Structures are given as C-alpha cells and as structure tokens.
C-alpha cells in the first residue's frame, strides 16, 4: 500500500505486461485468476438474465390480468393460432437448446469439429424458428389480426367465415367481446415479438461466434463467451416454454 512504489506496469486495456508468473493472455488485468474471471462473467450474465425475467414480467402480468377479464376473447384468439406450428416451434427451440448445450460441452472438452457443428445446428434451428414464426405472423397479417387501425374482428363475430374459428367450433362473440381479441393479439405480438427480438439478437451473436469457432477459436480454454451465450440461448428457450402454453394451449377449452 505504499503509494510511491512503482512495481508492475499494467496498461489500460488490461494485459499484464510485467507480471512474472504465467497467466493466459485472455486473463484480464483486474482478475486474480481465470476461474475468478469466468465465475464473474457467468454471474454477470445471470444478473442480466434477471433483468430479462423482469422485462418479460411486465408482459406476463398484463397477460394474466386480461386473460381473466376477457376470457372468451382470449379463447377465440388462441383458436387462431396453429397448435401444429406452435408445437413444431417448441420442438425446434428445445432442439436448438440441446444443440447449444452440446456446443458448450464441446467447447469445454475442446472438440473443435463438434463445437462448429453444434453451433451450425443451433443457428439453423434458430433461423428455422424465426421462419416458422414469420409464417404464423404472415397469416395474422393476411387475416387482419395485427392490432391497430386495420384490425378486423370478422373472424370472431362471424366464426363461420374463418377456417380456424370454424374448425374450433367457435360460437360468435358479441361485438364488444370480439373487440377484446385485439388485446389478446396485442399481447401475443408484444410477447412473441419481444421473444423473436431476443432470438434475432441471439442469432446475430451466434453468427459471430460461429465465425470465430470455424477459425479455431474457443479451443484455448477461454470459452466464457460460449458459456454465457449458452445461458442466454437457454433463457430465450425458457421464455418460449412459458409462452407456448399461455398463448397456444391453455385457452383452448371453453
């Protein structure tokens, strides 16, 4: 604690220049050991995921309140969603979570090929998820189920005019309740939209990671990024695990 001694010099970007004992190059200057650095990184990532929980928390709160208020509208609204596509997407996302977990394992055990293939699989599955989601969104667009000025309650006041509503044997809703389906679709788009946004951010990060992995990255033991991305990807998966039953499944009975 002698303030005037000049011992080691450390530059602002954290690379030890004069430390005698061996440290890997990726150990940043302010950490004592690599373990401290990775633990710190994953703790930070978890705290970030907590903010994500709260971020979606507001939407879940809104969903619970309005589902109780406008149950028939939520039933009719959920009949507009395809269980097949929803289930397929769940399958896709769980698989991508699995491949990502395998990717983390490959990185931990320094399997270069495995990591690259796991990341490619994750990437394809992630893009596949968004593809299926966009098919669903497109259908909503065509049927004027996007909230806003163009929103149409036709499918709900006159279910016979609508294939999905007819298939679900929907009874016509009163105009007032039919209008409340806009609340359902507002939440549907807000929740799945926020989820999709997280997927898009994830895919962008994944591309960068894959690029680095192909060129031999992450084989030197510095896999904090892979691990933390894994945490993020699994979190996005968990959000979907809740969105799928809430939006697609639980309201199907009336």
């Amino acid at each position: 604690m002698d303030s005037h001694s000049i011992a080691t010099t450390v530059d602002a970007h954290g690379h030890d220049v004069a430390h005698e004992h061996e440290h890997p190059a990726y150990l940043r200057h302010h950490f004592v050991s690599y373990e401290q650095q990775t633990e710190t990184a994953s703790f930070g990532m978890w705290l970030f995921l907590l903010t994500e929980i709260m971020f979606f928390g507001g939407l879940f709160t809104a969903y619970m309140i309005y589902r109780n208020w406008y149950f028939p509208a939520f039933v009719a609204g959920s009949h507009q969603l395809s269980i097949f596509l929803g289930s397929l997407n769940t399958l896709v996302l769980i698989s991508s979570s699995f491949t990502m977990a395998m990717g983390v394992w490959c990185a931990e055990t320094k399997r270069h090929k495995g990591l690259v293939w796991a990341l490619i699989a994750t990437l394809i599955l992630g893009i596949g998820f968004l593809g299926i989601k966009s098919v669903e969104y497109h259908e909503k667009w065509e049927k004027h189920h996007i909230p806003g000025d163009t929103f149409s309650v036709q499918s709900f006041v006159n279910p016979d005019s609508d294939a999905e509503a007819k298939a679900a044997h929907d009874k016509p809703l009163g105009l007032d309740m039919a209008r409340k389906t806009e609340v359902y679709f507002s939440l549907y788009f807000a929740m799945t939209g926020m989820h999709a946004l997280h997927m898009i951010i994830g895919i962008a990060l994944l591309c960068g990671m894959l690029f680095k992995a192909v060129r031999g990255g992450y084989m030197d033991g510095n896999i904090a990024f892979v691990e933390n991305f894994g945490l993020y990807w699994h979190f996005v998966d968990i959000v979907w695990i809740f969105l799928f039953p809430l939006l697609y499944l639980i309201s199907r009975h009336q």
Partner: protein
Amino acid sequence: MSEEFENHDPNSGHTESEHHIVGPATYAIIFAALLVGTALTIGASYLEMGAWNPVVAIAIACIKATLVVLFFMHIKYSSKLMKLTVGAGLFTFLILVGMSLSDYISRAWGQW
C-alpha cells in the same frame, strides 16, 4: 438472503465449486425429458379439465423450465450465490405479478 452475506473470501470461494462439466448423456436425458414434457402439455391441452387446464400446462412448463435451468444452464452444479441469484429473480418476478394481481382481485371484494 442471509447466505449471500456470509463471510467468505471471494478468492478462495470459487475453488469450492470446481468447474463441473455436464456430459452429453445428461443433456440427452434432459432433452428427452423436455420432449416428453412438450408432448404431455400438448396432449393435456386436448383434455377437458376446466380450471385445471392452465394449472397443468403451467406446472409442466415450470418443470421444463426448471430442468433447463438446472442442467442446461448448470445451476445444479453452481455455487450457492448463483442459486440464490436465480431465486431472487424468481422472487421479484412473483412480487411483480402477485402484488399487481392483488389489486385486480380485491377490486371486486364486497361486490357480491
């Protein structure tokens, strides 16, 4: 929150939780369990259970999420601090949802 404040030295603390590598076998089992859970929840949605439909669906979703958190996200093998962090997030989430709902539920009190 008391464990969080126990007097432990952060630099010796990390050695207690030696980095645990979860193997492909575990991942495969969890993956299979998640698929089974998905199938179950879809199947359950076709059954007529009245008020129990959402309960069952949410329960299955919670189990699935727990599996992902514990194994895919390695919380089962992580330090107490991490477990506590996850718990804190869940707790605050429940506060947000629960206390907001408390207003909505009790608005109708005295109205029957």
